[in-house]
């Protein structure tokens, strides 16, 4: 494998040299939009392997990081006001709200449980009919069908103690929003492997032609990431911008139609706020009217909290790829994974956490 990596690196260097020579770019910015890619790139030191004129930047690929602080504040308001048990994925626990976090509330005795699968929340609701259970649903297209399955199941079983608080978001709208922001000059996208496993490649059609950007759906092995970077350089060389799948064992052009259509059986698009990117039209998902009895936002109303981001934290700019974590004054000083200031340091897949873990000495 080492030899393979070496030969592909040679190829990348040659293609890049040619492109710089032909003045196609001085620096090529390639953005990855998947937290798992962010981690893999940092862990395998891919940034250090490739030529310096290829700049790998991280985008809004970590669902926990892009969830705005207001959502955290709201769910905390709900558990303060109502007697309910909240289930969520572990990464959400430490995300700072304006004044508290789910972890801090749990330490104060509030009922908050970490689940591995959304079915854990549903099973708990079924075996505890006297308790109200809220599943705090988070994630992109990879995770949304899972929530859809359990909502449908709750509906079929006529459960009246199970609810979903949806912070689900869909990626393509965010990518379009990001691209219309003129200060970010992206030359290529490493598209997320597991989001695309559900959506297929057609979700991104339009982006390559409209913006002249190479789009390659990548797997997660270092070799596969390098191959995808190579494919991006090849598209630029040939002026042939399109959506290319380099993770064919898992990503089919049509995605997983069963899972994808399930999303829209249960949810409908709604405008949604993203940390760093602001409000993006149609980029969120709320439960359809048929399922409104399961909608925690309707069943447990709370006033809009006054939310504000931690002072000095630049997560918004990190998420947009405008700055690197090193550019934040707090990075590695007052903000570390043990004492995170912002969401990008909390989540194990946040860009600041990935840089801290694998690149702090560089």
């Amino acid at each position, binding site marked *: 494998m080492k*030899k*393979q990596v070496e*030969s*592909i690196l040679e*190829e990348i260097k040659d293609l890049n040299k040619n492109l710089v020579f032909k003045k196609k770019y001085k620096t090529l910015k390639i953005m990855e939009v*998947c*937290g*798992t890619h962010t981690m893999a790139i940092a862990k395998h030191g891919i940034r250090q392997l490739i030529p310096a004129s290829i700049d790998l930047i991280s985008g809004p690929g*970590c*669902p*926990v990081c892009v969830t705005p602080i207001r959502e955290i504040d709201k769910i905390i308001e709900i558990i303060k006001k109502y007697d309910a048990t909240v289930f969520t*994925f572990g*990464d959400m626990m430490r995300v700072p709200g304006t004044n508290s976090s789910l972890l801090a509330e749990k330490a104060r005795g509030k009922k908050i449980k970490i689940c*591995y*699968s*959304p*079915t*854990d929340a549903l099973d708990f609701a079924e075996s505890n009919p006297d308790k109200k259970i809220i599943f705090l649903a*988070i*994630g*992109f297209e*990879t*995770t949304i*069908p*899972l929530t859809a*399955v359990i909502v449908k199941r709750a509906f079929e079983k006529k459960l009246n103690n199970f609810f979903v608080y949806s912070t689900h978001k869909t990626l393509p709208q965010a990518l379009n929003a990001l691209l219309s922001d003129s200060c970010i000059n992206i030359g290529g996208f490493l598209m*997320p*492997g*597991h*989001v695309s*496993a*559900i959506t297929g490649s057609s979700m991104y059609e339009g982006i390559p032609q409209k913006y002249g950007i190479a789009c390659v759906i990548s797997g997660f092995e270092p*070799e*596969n990431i390098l*191959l995808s970077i190579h*494919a991006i350089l*090849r*598209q630029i*060389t*040939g002026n*042939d911008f*399109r959506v290319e*799948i*380099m993770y*064919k*064992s*898992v*990503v*089919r052009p049509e995605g*997983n139609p*069963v*899972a994808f259509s*399930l999303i829209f059986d249960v949810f409908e698009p709604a405008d949604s706020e993203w940390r760093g990117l602001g409000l993006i039209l149609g980029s969120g998902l709320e439960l359809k009217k048929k399922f409104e009895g399961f909608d925690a936002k309707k069943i447990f109303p709370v006033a809009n909290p006054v939310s504000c981001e931690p002072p000095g934290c630049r997560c918004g700019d990190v998420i947009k790829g405008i700055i690197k974590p090193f550019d934040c004054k707090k990075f590695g000083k007052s903000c570390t994974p043990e004492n995170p200031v912002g969401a990008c340091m909390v*989540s194990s*897949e946040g860009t600041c956490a990935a840089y801290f873990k694998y690149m702090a000495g560089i």
Partner: protein
Amino acid sequence: MCLAIPAVVKKINRNIAEIESLGVLKKIDISLVPDVRKGDYVIVHAGFAIQVIDKEEALITEDYWKQYFTDEAGFEDNEEEYFEAGDNEDVQ
């Protein structure tokens, strides 16, 4: 968050499958991949199989490696074809 791992399906009982991943046995939900069969490899995310791994495609990717990046002589031979193949399905 979108972390998902490969696993092999050992047993199927309605919407639940017993899988093995890295030597660990586990039960997962297979509602999202209704066509899955015993012996298939799947990608598992948060307790659900989200896609069946296409073994042939996995082999093709391996071939891509073999063809273009392991055998240097082979690479020289194929170089031109390889770069020209940019806009068809040849290079995956």
